[in-house]
Structure formats: C-alpha cells, structure tokens
C-alpha cells in the first residue's frame, strides 16, 4: 500500500470534544420547547382485537390536542424495516391497527401540551379488547390454528415465501450439490440443534423524534435514525404526503446497532404534526425501547456436518426456524445472512443446503441487529466444528485451517445467496484469515493453554471461533458524496451516510482529506439531511466505509481533477504538467499557484465559479472482513460460574482508515457479543408480557465484566475498497457465543447449545455428566 498521510493514521474523532462537553447534538436537544408530547397506549395483551374504543373523555381534557386511533388512518400496509425499495420485508403493519399483536404494540396515541396531560388522557381512553390465545412458542407457530395476521390486506413486495395463512413471514431454500447423498457417503456426521435468544440493542439513547411544519409549509423532522432517506420515503408512501414536502434531519445518534434502522416513532409523530400543524415530540421510554421496538431474531438451527475421516469437510446442511415476532421486519434477509455470511467460511464442501422458515408469533418483533443473523449462524457452525474435531480426534484449529476459505478462493454461496435475492459471485481478493488464526494462537499462547488447565476446583480453558461478515449489499446499497471547494481552500463534504456514533463522519472526512492531500481539519463534514446531502441508503449492512467511502474517494478525486484544470488555466499550461501536493499547484516550468490563491480567485476575481463534485457508488461485490476470536475463561466446576479472563481478536478489515475507531468497532462488538453469549435474554410471562423491560432486569455488560480485551489487525488491502478498506462495524459481534461455548466445553465437557451460556446450564450439565458416569 502507498504511504498515506491521513488515512490509516491516528486521528481522534472529529466530533468527540463537543459531545463530551455536552453541546447540543442529539435529536431531543433540538426539539422546540412548545412541541406537543406524544404518548402511546401500549397493548397489555399478546394478541387481541380492539372491539370498541372511546376517546371522548380524553379529547375533553384541557391541553389534549389530538387523539389518534386506527379509525383515523387509511389502511395502508407498510413495513417499518427501513430498507431499500422494494423492501424484502412484507408490508404487514399499519400505522395503527384494530389488532394488537404483541404486548407493547400500539393501541392508540395522544398528543398533549405536556407529558402529564398526555398520560392522563391515555388513562381516560376506554378500550374493549377481544382477547385471543397468542402464539408464543415459535416452534409451534407454523400452521398453528391461530393466525397472527388474519387480515387480507397485507402483502409481500416480491416473492419471499410470505404465507400469513401458515404464520410464515418468509421462507427460504437453497441447495448446492446433493447434500443427502454427500452426507450418506461421509465417514463422520455430526448433528446438533442450536438455540439462540432475542437480544436487545440497548443503545444508550432511546429512540427520539420530533417534527414541525416549517415556514415553507413542509414537514421538518429530526430523528435518531440510521436511515433518514428511507424514513422520508416510507413516511411519504404510508401517510400519502408528497415526498418533496418532507425533510428529515438526523442529528447525532446515540447508538443504533440496527435498532434505529427501522422507523419507530416517526410515523405517529409525523401524523400528529401534519394533522395539528403543531410541533410534536416523541421520546421512547426505556421500557418502550425494550418491548415496543424490535430485537434480534430468536432462532433454532438444526445443523448437520459431514467429513471424511482425515478431516475434509464434505457437506453442511442447515434447517433453521427464525422467530420474527409480530411483524416480518428483516425476516427473510436476516435469516439468509445466517447462511450467506457464515457457511462460506468452509468453502471446500461438496454440498451445502440452507433452508428455513421465518415464522410470525405474538412476541415483540425481531429486526436488524449488528451481525444480522450471522451471529446466530456463527454460534452454531463454530460450535459444531469443535464437535466434529473431537469426533475426528483432530485438533479444532487444524480442522479449521484445513477447510477454511483462503485468499483467492471463492464459495458458490456468494453467487446463489444475496439478501432477499440472488447473490453476486466474488473471489476473496483479500482474506488474511490464515494470518488471523496464526497470530491469535501466538498472542494467546494457545498451544500452551489448550484445552484446559485444572487449578483445584477451578479450570482455566480456552476456546476460539472464526468469522466473516460483508461490506454492504452489492447492487443495492448506494452512497453518494458531494465535495465543495470554498475560498481560502477548505472543503465541505456532504454525505448521506449516517453517523450513529461509529465514527463515519471522521472516517469519511479522512478519505476525502487523503484524496485531496489536505489536513483533516480542512474538511468540514455535514451528513444525513435529506434536503442538503446526497442520497445514502443508511448506516447498515457494514456498508458505510466501503460503499460511502468509495463515493467520497471518487468525489474527492473528481474535485481534485477540476481544481487541477483550473490551475492549468491560470498557469497557462497543460493539465498533465501540473503537480498538486494538496496546497500548491506547480507546473513543469516551476510556476505555481497556491490552493488558497486559486480558490479565492475562483470565488471573487476571475471566471468566478463554484467547484463542486458529486459521486455515487454502488458496490459490485461485498468483500468480507474476517476474524479469529480467542477467549480464555476460568470456570468454577462447583458452581458453574465463570470469569472471562481475556478476549483476543485478530481481524482483517482491509486497511483500517482509522485504526483506533476500527478497534472500537471490534471491541464494542465483542462485548455486545459476550453479553448475548452469557446473560442477555428477554424473559416473558406465560401470557407473553416482557418482564425484562429495564436495565435492572435486562443486564448488559458493564465495566466489570471483561478483564482484558486485545485487538490486532492483519495487514490487508482490499483493492475494491477506498484505500484498501473493507468493513469493521459488525464482524466483532460474531465470535463470542461459539468461542465461549467451546471454552466452556473444554473446561467442563458440557456442550451448551442454547444461549445464553449461564452458570446454571453449566452446573446442570456437570451434574448430569456425573450422574451419567455413576
């Protein structure tokens, strides 16, 4: 790789100081003081029909501006998913509906002058429900006698296997080769079912939105969203407002992780402001974030893996059942990623089958969440690889090395499976998985520690897993950037790309500064405003650095060419003879003009013009980042409790545009993955009520959970990425569940196949083994 000055060097994030100082930054900070406060009545039932709703008393209360029920909306099915159009998610939701399909679903909404009045008004609304038996067990949901969606005015946008009569939001099937025969012919076959539980995003900023009608009579909305352009489109389509009448601004977002890809408060907030003409605001309570948005998909994955006795993996066979809850947001695509960004890890198989059903239940919906199905798939695959190694009497690392994907290779799966559609064939032009594995073994002294060391009643053990993800969705995700040259030679970079705390404003500014040869501080960034910035699909699918970054690189290169042309005109020489070092244009005779002089002249003095370049980018492939994750634990065999002593990650993300921020992405993902692996879990009452609706009952990792995190990056360069970059946003979350399950097995002989991995399950496993021995 060529030497760089701004990219791949240390740069603190450009906005960290102002945010630490508490300056106005987040959605709620910009809300008008007189905004009406919107409060929503949430369903106490997992499944019911509203038979009667009386809002007359509520409307009479002084300070109540508007009450909205399902009767106030035209039935116009949509999906909150927040994806490109047409969406691969079924249009199966209404702004408000006569049915409520999970505890926490919307019944009706009130907007009032203050919160107390709005809450009082909700109390004054009388609702009669016809309560139905809910479908809570996802394993019995398909063809259940109760239909979660009995209505007939919902639809899929293109074939995704949507069949609400059978409680199917989507279904998928693919097979390469003859799996049945290959498994029959394999020397060894291992079979196991794995269960994962829903996980809450638990971003620190709750979903927030506010809206007003501006002086141009347009709807101006501020939203803590990952997808401002999708929000604009979906509001327009669903509320039937011309799209040019809507402006969506995304201020600083306090974490997303996929949880803010979908629309949550936007629809009701827009409706209130459009109907009253008054500003309105909706900030989710933490309870609403936990039970009325969406979570990660619960899955059961039935895995079969075949191999020859010398350890060549021959076949992978997966049937999965995924619980999308009440609405099919991301139903198909999350499930497909469970296969498409997991199974190619072992690309030398003769046959592979991946199929499954994504079922409706009367639980909280599931949707996009960092990893997007790959976490669930990785837990199953990387657990069963260790199981296979044991059965073969082989070292699990050696089994991986022998079978895993390597640089220059491909997998047929890339061609067959996309996201909701067919995929895109690609070779692994950058894949340093072998290095990641080897380096991780060294860093962790794996050979010295594997599988375990007994220390009295405690056992110290290690476990590992490898993983891959993607970089955007090829031919679908588009990002665009505009760069403008200002007088005195500084630049504005405007991007649709959505900074949600991951550091994209900084990373994209670094790419622009590198291409323009300037200092980072001379690139002023403004992102995610549907009026002022070019389009971008949004912050999801690990796309921003790769897709939007390529757009920024191309826009900057284009502007650089334009500036050189103007300099050549001024110096009266050929364009080819100009050398530009970021500050000065010099021709072959040694005559020169500074950028400052050039830009001032273009602004004020001669042939005045505004130089601006726009470029967009849509990926033609999705180069996967790869990693190897290693965990060391200390397990107490008497109690089943365990401590995570160390988690070491060696990661190939291509070039790290900003090494510290990339490290933050990996480590944040690791710890979120450890949470999922060890204790994060929704608990429901028998009637489907969430009893884990706050941080006291739904625990996420705190400062004290992890003793040591180590992260290293492989020296890697992806030719199709900006300055060689791939993605870093999701890959970190993939390995902890399997690595930890493998470490626990190595310590105790107990194979945990149902997440989370709790001391209770470990202890019960130990006791069971003791009993079996007697």
């Amino acid at each position: 790789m060529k030497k760089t000055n701004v990219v791949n060097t240390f740069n603190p994030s450009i906005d960290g100081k102002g945010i630490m100082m508490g300056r106005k930054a987040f959605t709620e900070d910009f809300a008008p003081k007189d905004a009406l406060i919107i409060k929503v009545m949430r369903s106490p039932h997992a499944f019911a029909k509203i038979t009667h709703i009386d809002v007359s008393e509520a409307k009479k209360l002084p300070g109540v501006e508007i009450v909205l029920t399902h009767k106030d909306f035209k039935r116009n099915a949509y999906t909150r998913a927040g994806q490109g159009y047409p969406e691969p998610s079924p249009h199966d939701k209404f702004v408000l509906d006569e049915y409520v399909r999970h505890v926490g679903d919307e019944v009706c909404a009130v907007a009032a002058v203050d919160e107390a009045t709005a809450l009082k008004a909700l109390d004054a609304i009388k609702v009669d429900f016809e309560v139905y038996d809910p479908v809570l067990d996802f394993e019995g949901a398909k063809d259940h006698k109760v239909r979660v969606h009995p209505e007939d005015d919902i639809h899929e946008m293109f074939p995704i296997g949507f069949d609400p009569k059978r409680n199917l939001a989507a279904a998928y099937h693919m097979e390469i080769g003859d799996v049945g025969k290959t498994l029959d012919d394999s020397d060894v076959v291992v079979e196991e079912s794995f269960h994962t539980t829903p996980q809450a995003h638990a971003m620190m900023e709750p979903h927030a939105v506010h809206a007003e009608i501006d002086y141009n009579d347009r709807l101006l909305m501020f939203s803590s969203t990952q997808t401002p352009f999708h929000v604009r489109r979906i509001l327009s389509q669903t509320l039937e407002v011309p799209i040019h009448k809507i402006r969506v601004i995304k201020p600083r977002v306090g974490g997303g992780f996929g949880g803010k890809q979908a629309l949550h408060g936007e629809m009701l907030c827009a409706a209130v402001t459009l109907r009253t003409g008054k500003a309105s605001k909706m900030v989710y309570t933490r309870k609403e974030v936990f039970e009325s948005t969406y979570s990660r998909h619960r899955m059961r994955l039935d895995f079969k893996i075949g191999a020859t006795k010398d350890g060549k993996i021959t076949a992978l066979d997966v049937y999965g059942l995924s619980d999308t809850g009440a609405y099919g947001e991301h139903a198909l695509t999350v499930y497909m990623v469970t296969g498409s960004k997991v199974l190619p890890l072992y690309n030398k198989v003769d046959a592979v089958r991946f199929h499954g059903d994504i079922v409706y239940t009367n639980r909280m919906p599931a949707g996009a969440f960092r990893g997007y199905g790959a976490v669930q798939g990785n837990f199953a695959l990387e657990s069963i690889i260790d199981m296979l190694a044991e059965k073969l009497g082989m070292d699990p690392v050696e089994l991986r090395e022998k079978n895993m994907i390597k640089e220059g290779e491909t997998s047929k799966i890339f061609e067959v499976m996309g996201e909701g559609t067919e995929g895109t064939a690609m070779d692994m032009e950058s894949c340093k998985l072998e290095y990641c594995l080897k380096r991780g073994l060294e860093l962790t002294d794996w050979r010295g520690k594997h599988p375990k060391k007994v220390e009295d009643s405690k056992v110290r053990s290690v476990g590992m897993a490898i993983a891959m993800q993607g970089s955007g969705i090829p031919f679908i995700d588009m990002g665009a950037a505009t760069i403008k040259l200002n007088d005195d030679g500084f630049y504005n970079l405007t991007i649709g790309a959505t900074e949600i705390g991951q550091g994209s404003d900084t990373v994209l500014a670094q790419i622009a500064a590198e291409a323009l040869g300037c200092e980072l501080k001379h690139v002023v960034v403004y992102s995610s405003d549907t009026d002022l910035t070019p389009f971008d699909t949004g912050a999801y699918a690990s796309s921003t650095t790769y897709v939007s970054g390529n757009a920024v690189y191309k826009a900057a290169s284009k502007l650089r060419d334009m500036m050189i042309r103007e300099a050549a005109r001024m110096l009266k020489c050929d364009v080819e003879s100009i050398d530009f070092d970021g500050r000065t244009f010099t021709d072959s005779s040694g005559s020169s003009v500074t950028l400052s002089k050039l830009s001032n002249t273009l602004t004020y003095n001669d042939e005045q013009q505004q130089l601006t370049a726009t470029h967009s980018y849509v990926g033609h492939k999705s180069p996967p980042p790869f990693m190897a994750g290693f965990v060391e634990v200390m397990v107490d065999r008497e109690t089943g409790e365990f401590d995570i002593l160390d988690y070491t990650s060696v990661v190939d993300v291509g070039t790290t545009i900003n090494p510290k921020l990339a490290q933050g992405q990996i480590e944040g993902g690791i710890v979120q993955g450890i949470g999922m692996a060890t204790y994060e879990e929704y608990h429901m009452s028998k009637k489907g009520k969430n009893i884990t609706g706050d941080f006291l009952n739904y625990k996420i990792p705190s400062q004290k959970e992890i003793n040591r995190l180590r992260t290293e990056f492989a020296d890697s360069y992806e030719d199709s990425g900006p300055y060689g970059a791939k993605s870093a946003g999701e890959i970190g979350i993939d390995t902890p569940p399997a690595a930890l399950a493998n470490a626990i097995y190595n310590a105790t002989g107990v194979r945990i196949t149902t997440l989370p991995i709790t001391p209770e399950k470990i202890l019960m496993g130990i006791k069971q083994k003791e009993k079996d021995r007697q």
Partner: protein
Amino acid sequence: MKLHATINGRKRVLEIQPGDVLLDTLRDHDFISVRRGCDSTSCGVCTILVEGKPVPSCTYLSARAEGKTITTVEGVQDHAARLAGFFGGEGADQCGFCNPGIALSVYALSNEAPDADEDTIRHYLTGHLCRCTGYHSQVQAVKKYLEGLK
C-alpha cells in the same frame, strides 16, 4: 414551588412541581448535556454532581436539591474538553451519549481518588453503561487523564 440551588456556580431560583426530577428540571432550563437514558437509575447517562458527588438525575427529586450545589458538564467545560482529548486518544468516544455523565464521574473521581488504578477506575465507573466501546478504551483514557493531572 421554587427550587433555590447553585447550578454551575450561579445561584438560581427555578419554578418546579413537587414530583419533578432534576433530569427534567435541568433539561427544561437548557442544561441539555444531561441526557435521558433509562428513567430507572440504572444506566448512568443522566449523571450530575450534587454537592460534588455523582448522582443519577432521573430519580433525584428536584425539591430535594433545595439549597444544594449542582454541577453539570456545562459547569466543568475545561475539564470535559481535556478529558475529551484522552478519550479521542484512545478511540473511546463513539456515540458519546454517555460521555457528559462519565465526564462528571471522572471529575469527582479525580478529586476523591486521584491515584486510582485500573480496578478502582472500573469500579468507580461501573454505574455508567456504554453499549459502544466495550469499556477497555474508556478505562485507558481515564487512567491517562488522571496521570496527566499529576
């Protein structure tokens, strides 16, 4: 009713209702650095200092602050800016929603235990949940910040 308190060094008289909590009272008076995270004293996002001690403002009744000294990040801007340099240095600032609260706890920590080691720092900051960073970089940043004060 009226609340008499010293906020960021200035004596203030604020109109409050009996059930109001400081989180709302402060935000309503444009101390917007105080962020809303959970409403149940469990995430640390809304941390402020009352009499120099970190407390969650989401469950601190405004009336209880009568006559007391309240500090938000608006009152310790130099400290926050300096700490931000260390967070930036370690890549510890992602979304930053929890950072003003953390800045106040670090301010209190630097007064109470300027020699805090890594374990003490972790213990002191346990009440501040962060979903972005994985904490490791935060602890390194705070450690270096405290060392820098010596």
